[in-house]
């Protein structure tokens, strides 16, 4: 599999994504369901493993803001590409809560969405297929002008 783009490049994925009903692997970096993480937060926080958490569509940025210094990665799961909540969550994590770790899009999203996602602070993309990942690589900068500010640049009017 080569479906992960991180910081603009195809990358090998070291992280294991743990679903709600599957056991947590014994070692290595893991992306946990929020409930699993919350259930034993102090133990996960104390462990020397790399810990990430994924949020489903109903879970909000505020649900992890007390753990941002412990988490290396937050994944936002897109239940359907038309569901845009993840865009706002990513911006809140970056701009309001100053999360500096990896924010990763997972689930059902389109290569054509990575530009906007990137502007909202998502920097890693687990595409649905390898082919889509290679398509997405070419779609990161369809626009050279940005009217509004994002996590990547100030608004055009601040620069004019």
């Amino acid at each position, binding site marked *: 599999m080569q479906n992960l783009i991180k910081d603009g490049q195809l990358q090998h994925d070291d992280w294991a994504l743990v679903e709600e009903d599957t056991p947590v692997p014994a070692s290595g970096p893991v992306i946990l369901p929020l409930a699993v993480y919350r259930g034993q937060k102090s133990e996960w926080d104390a462990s020397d493993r790399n810990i990430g958490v994924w949020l489903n569509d109903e879970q909000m940025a505020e649900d992890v803001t007390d753990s941002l210094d412990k988490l290396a990665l937050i994944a936002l799961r897109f239940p359907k590409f038309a569901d845009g*909540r993840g*865009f706002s969550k990513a911006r809140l994590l970056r701009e309001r809560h100053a999360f500096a770790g990896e924010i990763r899009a997972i689930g059902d999203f389109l290569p054509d969405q990575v530009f906007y996602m990137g502007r909202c602070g998502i920097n890693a993309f687990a595409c649905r297929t390898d082919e889509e990942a290679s398509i997405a690589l070419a779609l990161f900068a*369809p626009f050279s002008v940005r*009217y509004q500010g994002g996590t990547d640049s100030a608004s055009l009017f*601040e620069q004019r």
Partner: protein
Amino acid sequence: MYLYDSFDQKVVDERVAQFREQTERYLDGKIADDEFLPLRLQNGLYIQRHAPMLRIAIPYGLLSSRQLYRLADLTEQYDKGYAHFTTRQNVQFNWPALEDVPDILAGLAEVQMHAIQTSGNCIRNTTTDQFAGVVQDEIDDPRPWCELIRQWSTLHPEFAFLPRKFKIAVNASPDADRAAVRFHDIGLELVRDDSGAIGFRVFVGGGLGRTPLVGQNVRDFLPAKHLLTYLDAILRMYNLNGRRDNKFKARIKILVKALGVDAFRDRVESEWAHLKDGPGTLTQSEIERVSQHFIDPDYADLNDADALLKEQTANNPGFDRWLARNITRHKKPGYAAVTLSLKKVGYAPGDCTSGQMRAAAQLADSFSLGGLRVSHEQNLILADVRQDQLLDLWQAAKQHGFATPTIGTLSDVICCPGGDYCALANAKSIPIAEAIQAQFDDLDYLFDLGDIDLNISGCMNACGHHHIGNIGILGVDKKGEEFYQVSLGGDSGLNARVGKILGPSFKADEVPAVVDKVIQVYVDNRTPDETFIDTVDRLGIEPFKERVYAKPH
């Protein structure tokens, strides 16, 4: 009007390239139909009953003659030689081929036009008063604010996949609301505070469709420089909390209603507390840069031409009617704003052939400094005409079928495309409009009846705004047959309210007679100078109901 600089031009050019590549990938079978859908919708492309339909933005209704000439060319090159002006200051092509759409968009980009976000679940074209900038009673010109909103909303990375579509309208007249701002997701009213500073009163949660609701006052005064951060706060709240499980409950109006306006306001304000004075805050230099594009043209120093016009009306039968209905007062003495009617009987309301587009563009060049406006009543406006040239303009307009002197009357029907074009329709709407116009073809009578808004929609999506017509007609389906429900008393203006349904629905061929009976009740009961809507208000709908549903003796 706003002229693109190199940045703005780049945005539309790059958008064309992006959509060209997406279309190629789709035609190669590399994007599934349902995944191409949001991509094409955000470029205005619907797939309709007959063919794709392309909706092109006319931002807040402003159009140059050069742009209109280009639209005429494009309809001939890629469509059937006509287009349709809509109730939201857009224009639609009804028959383009999907493969041609990137070329059409490229042709538009050359004249600083686009179809960005004219459909889909994103922030749509911002609309305003068709007389913005030329009417006397304005607080301030709304157009710079509309342009600032246009730029802010264009390719906004956070709000391209909202629960549902999102429409913003701006009004700047304290005495009238020609933009129906209380029926938009966000309605903005320009106001001044005690110190004279400009700001906005903010309404949220208006809309028509299945659940017609009047927008609620969320803020009495928003200082102007905070406009964009406040919009960001509202949109973010909606993006995160609006319903996504049921598309009929997904508009922001449902969220406002569910939370209650006070709780809604609290949540917006607490979001805004983080954004206020942040990087999205408008700078004075940006406000000035955009406003520069809307300063008054070099008007001649004139006096009102009352004497001349009086003399001309005496010698030109019909001219006085046209002056009475199709002319709007201008803030500059000696000038007038003229509405070119697209409501000629026998033609679909809002339809315009390529020949008419060229004619209108030429009239704009000859009589109105090369500029036009598009109104939500689906007419064209020449906003800067010298009064001493009105007679010449009237004569030229007559030749092209633009001089129907019925603006604001029963015959100035607002109508959606309905069953002739639209796959969602329950019933046809254009033939109903035509039948009503034919029933009321006596100009003296229409004149005497005065201002009446009549709106027709082919289904409850309400594209023809039937809820807010003084008389509203809605196509409904009864066991596979087309029927029409009639409502009375809707109002799109400052007294925003939804009309009341008269009773059981009618067959198509009964509708003109029903409207006729409604009008008779008005004529029989009105007091001197009382408008139709005021009579409906005073009497309630009972007398109308009685007359319409009375059994023949």
